C-alpha cells in the first residue's frame, strides 16, 4: 500500500483517538469546578458527591488523553519530518508554549485535585481544580492556534522554502483561530454535557436517583440546552470564515460543483467525483446561497473552480467532507431537540421519563461523533495541503517504508480498539455501581471489597 496514505491513516487514527479525551476533559474540568464552588457555597453534600463521581471520570479520561498525546508528539517526527523542517520555526514555539504553560500545570495539580482533598486546605483543593481546568483550556488554546495557522497561515515569510516568523501577533491571532477555538470549546462543552446527562440517566434508570445524580443530570441537560444554540450560531460564523479563506472546503461541504448563484442547500446526495456531479440529490432551492451569502442569488465558488490546467484535483476529496459535515449537523439538530425537550421536562415536572432516559443514554457519546465529524470536515477539507498554500501533505511525509508503517498501524488500531472498549465499559461500570463508588473510597489501598463504607457527610465538613 501507498506509504503516504498509510502514514495519513496512522496519524489520523491517533489524532482521532486522542481528541476524544481532551474533548471531555476540557469542559469537565470547568464542570468539576462548578460542582466544587456549588458545594463550597451551599455545603450541600449532593454537589460534593457529584464531584467525587465525576472526578473519577475526569482522571480516567485524562490518563487516556495523556498517553495518546505523547504518542502524537512523537508521530510529528516519525510520520511528518517535513512538517518541522519547513514550518518548525512557527510550529515549534507554539508547541513549546503548550508544554510550558499547560502540560506541567495540569499534570502537577491533577495529583492534588485527585488525591489531595484530605492533605490540603479546602480552598487549595478548589484552586487546584481551577488550575487543572485552566491548564486544559490553555492547552486547547495553543494547539488550536497552531492548527488554525495551518489552515490560514499569516505573519511569516518563506526563505528557500522554509517559513520564518515575521509577526507573532498575526500568527497567534490568524484569521480562522477565534472561530475554530470557540467552535471547539463549545463542542467540548456539548460533549461533556451529553456525557454527564447520559451517564446520569443510566444511573437514574437503575433507580440510583439520589440528589447528587439528579444535580448532575440537571447540570448536563441544562448545559447542553444552553450551548447548542450558541454552537449553531458560532458554527455558521466559522463556515462564513472558511468560505472566505478556504472556499474549496466549503464547496466540498455543500457538494457544489459549479460556481454560480442560487445554490441549493443539498440535504442528501451521493457526490460522484468521476462525473463531477451529485447523484440522488435532495435539496432546498437557494438554501446554500441564503445561508452563506444571505441572498438567494449569492454566487458561491464551486469545486470545478479548483481543477488544475491538466485536470489535477486541487480540492479535497468530496464525499468524506460532504458526509462528515451532514453527520455533524444532524447530531447538532438532534442535540437541540433532545436537550430542549429534556430541559422542559425537568423544568415543568422536575423529573425525566423512562423513554427520555433511554434517549439520553443513547446520546452519551453523541458529542464524540459530532466532534470527530467536524474535525474530519476541516482536516480532510484542507487537503491536498498540510499548511494551506505553503506545504502539501505529500511533501511532509517521511521515507519510512509502507510495511513498517502498516505493522505499527495494526498495533495502534488494536490497542485503540481495546482502550475504547475498556473506557466505555468502565464508565458504565462506574455509573452502575455509582452509589457504592461514592461511599467507598476507590484507588490504591482498598483491596477487594474489604473497604468499609465511609459516611459521606462526615468526611468533608472538617476540611473547610
Amino acid at each position, binding site marked *: 500500500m501507498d506509504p503516504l496514505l498509510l502514514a495519513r491513516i496512522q496519524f489520523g487514527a491517533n489524532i482521532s483517538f486522542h481528541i476524544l479525551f481532551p474533548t471531555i476533559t476540557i469542559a469537565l474540568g470547568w464542570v468539576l469546578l462548578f460542582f466544587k464552588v456549588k458545594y463550597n457555597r451551599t455545603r450541600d453534600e449532593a454537589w460534593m458527591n457529584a464531584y*467525587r463521581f465525576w*472526578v473519577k471520570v475526569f*482522571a*480516567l479520561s*485524562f*490518563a*487516556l488523553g*495523556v*498517553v495518546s*498525546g*505523547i*504518542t502524537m*508528539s*512523537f508521530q*510529528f*517526527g*516519525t510520520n511528518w*519530518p517535513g512538517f*518541522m*523542517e519547513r514550518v*518548525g*520555526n512557527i510550529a*515549534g*514555539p507554539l*508547541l*513549546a508554549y503548550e508544554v*510550558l*504553560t499547560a*502540560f*506541567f*500545570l495540569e*499534570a*502537577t*495539580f491533577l*495529583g*492534588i485535585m*485527585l*488525591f*489531595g*482533598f484530605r*492533605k490540603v486546605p479546602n480552598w487549595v483543593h478548589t484552586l487546584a481544580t481551577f488550575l487543572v481546568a485552566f491548564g486544559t483550556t490553555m492547552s486547547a488554546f495553543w494547539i488550536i492556534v497552531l492548527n488554525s495557522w495551518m489552515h490560514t497561515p499569516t505573519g511569516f515569510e518563506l526563505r528557500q522554502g522554509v517559513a*520564518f*516568523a515575521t509577526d507573532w501577533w498575526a500568527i497567534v491571532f490568524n484569521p480562522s483561530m477565534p472561530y475554530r477555538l470557540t467552535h471547539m470549546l463549545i463542542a467540548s462543552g456539548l460533549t461533556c454535557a451529553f456525557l454527564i446527562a447520559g451517564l446520569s440517566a443510566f444511573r437514574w434508570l437503575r433507580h440510583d436517583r439520589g440528589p447528587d445524580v439528579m444535580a448532575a443530570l440537571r447540570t448536563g441537560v441544562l448545559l447542553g440546552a444552553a450551548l447548542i444554540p450558541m454552537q449553531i450560531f458560532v458554527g455558521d460564523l466559522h463556515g462564513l470564515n472558511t468560505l472566505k479563506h478556504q472556499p474549496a472546503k466549503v464547496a466540498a461541504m455543500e457538494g457544489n460543483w459549479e460556481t454560480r448563484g442560487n445554490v441549493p442547500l443539498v440535504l442528501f446526495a451521493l457526490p460522484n467525483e468521476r462525473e463531477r456531479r451529485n447523484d440522488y440529490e435532495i435539496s432546498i432551492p437557494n438554501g446554500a446561497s441564503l445561508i452563506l451569502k444571505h441572498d438567494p442569488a449569492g454566487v458561491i465558488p464551486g469545486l470545478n473552480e479548483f481543477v488544475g490546467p491538466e485536470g489535477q484535483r486541487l480540492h479535497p476529496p468530496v464525499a468524506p467532507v460532504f458526509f462528515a459535515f451532514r453527520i455533524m449537523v444532524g447530531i447538532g439538530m438532534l442535540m437541540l431537540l433532545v436537550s430542549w425537550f429534556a430541559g422542559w421536562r425537568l423544568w415543568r415536572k422536575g423529573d425525566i421519563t423512562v423513554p427520555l432516559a433511554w434517549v439520553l443514554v443513547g446520546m452519551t457519546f453523541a458529542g464524540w461523533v459530532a466532534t470527530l465529524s467536524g474535525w474530519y470536515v476541516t482536516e480532510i477539507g484542507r487537503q491536498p495541503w498540510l499548511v494551506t498554500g505553503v506545504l502539501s501533505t505529500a511533501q511532509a511525509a*517521511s521515507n*519510512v517504508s509502507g510495511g513498517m508503517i502498516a505493522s*505499527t498501524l495494526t498495533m495502534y488500531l488494536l*490497542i485503540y480498539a481495546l*482502550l475504547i472498549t*475498556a473506557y466505555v*465499559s*468502565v464508565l458504565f*461500570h462506574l455509573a452502575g455501581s455509582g452509589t457504592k463508588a461514592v461511599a467507598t*473510597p*476507590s*484507588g*490504591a*489501598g*482498598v*483491596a477487594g*471489597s474489604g473497604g468499609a463504607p465511609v459516611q459521606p457527610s462526615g468526611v468533608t465538613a472538617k476540611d473547610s
Partner: protein
Amino acid sequence: MFSYLDGQTLPLIFAALMGVSILAYVILDGYDLGVGMLMADATRPERDRMVATIGPFWDANETWLVLGIGLLLVAFPAAHGMVLTALYLPVALMLLGLTLRGVAFEFRVKAQAQYHRWWDWAFIGGSALSSVTQGYMLGLYIMGFEGGLVAQLFALGAGLGLAAAYTFVGATWLIGKTEGELQKRAVWWARLTLMLTAVGMVAVSLATPLVSPRIFERWFSFPNIIGLAPIPLMTGALFMAIWVFLKRMPRADHSLDFVPFMGAVSLFMLGFLGLAYSFYPYVVPEKLTIWQAASAPESLFIILMGALVVLPFIAAYTAFSYYVFRGKATELRYD
C-alpha cells in the same frame, strides 16, 4: 541587551535545556517505571501501596519526556526527523508500553473486579517494555544508528542495563516512601538491582569507546584521561557507598530513608555527564552538530523567553506537590 543570544549561543542553551529535561525524565519517570517493574514481585495489597507512592507524581514526571522530545522537535528540527525516523520501531514499542502503563493506573482499580489483575500485568509489562526500549534506543544512538548484529546486541544490552537502573531507582524510591514489610522488601530489591545496574553501567562504559573510535579518542587521549578520571572514580565510590548504606537498612529511624534515592539520582547524573561529554557537540552522532540542526535564532529566542518566565513557576509548583505528598505514602483516595 540580548545581543549575545545569537546563532552561536542559543543552540548551546537549548542543547543544555534538552539535556536537563531528558535527565529529569530519566530520573523521575525512571522511578515510576522501576516501581512498575518491581510490582511483578509483589502481592496485590503491596502493589496498591506501591502505586500509591507514585500516583500523584507520574503524570508530571512523564511531561518531562514531552518537554525533552518537544525541545528536540522545536530547537533541532533536522535532528528530530532523522532520529525519530531511524528509531521508528522502538519508538512505537515504547509508546505502546507507556500507553499500557499510563491507562493501567486508572483501569487497575476502576475496571470490573475480574479485570484488575489483567491491568496489573499491563502496568508491569508496559513499564518493562518502555524501560527496555528506551535503553535500546540509547544503545542505537551511541552506535550512531548503524545496523548490524553487533549494534543490535549492544543496544539490547543497553536496554536491559537501563531497565536494571530504573528498577534500582524505583526500589530506592520505595525505601523512602514506605515502611514495614514492604520497605524491607524494597531494600532487598535495591541491593539486587544495584548489582545489576553496576554490571550494566560497566558494560556500556567499556563497550562505548570500543565501538566508537571518536569516543575512545575523547576519553583516553592525554591529558583528557587525567581530567576525566574523577567521573568513573566517583561513580565507583558511589556504588560502594550505596552498597554499604543499604546493608544497614531498614533503620528504626526513618530520617535517612531517602539517602539511597539521592545516591541513585547522583549515579544517574554521573552517567549522564559521561554520555554528554562523549557526544558533545553532536546531536546526531557523527552526522549533525547542534548548530547544524538548530532552528532559526528568532524562534529559539521566543521559546527561551517563555521558558525563562515559566520554568521557575513549574519548579515552584512541582516542589509544592512533592511537599503536599511528602513522607510515607498513604492510600490514594478521592475524598
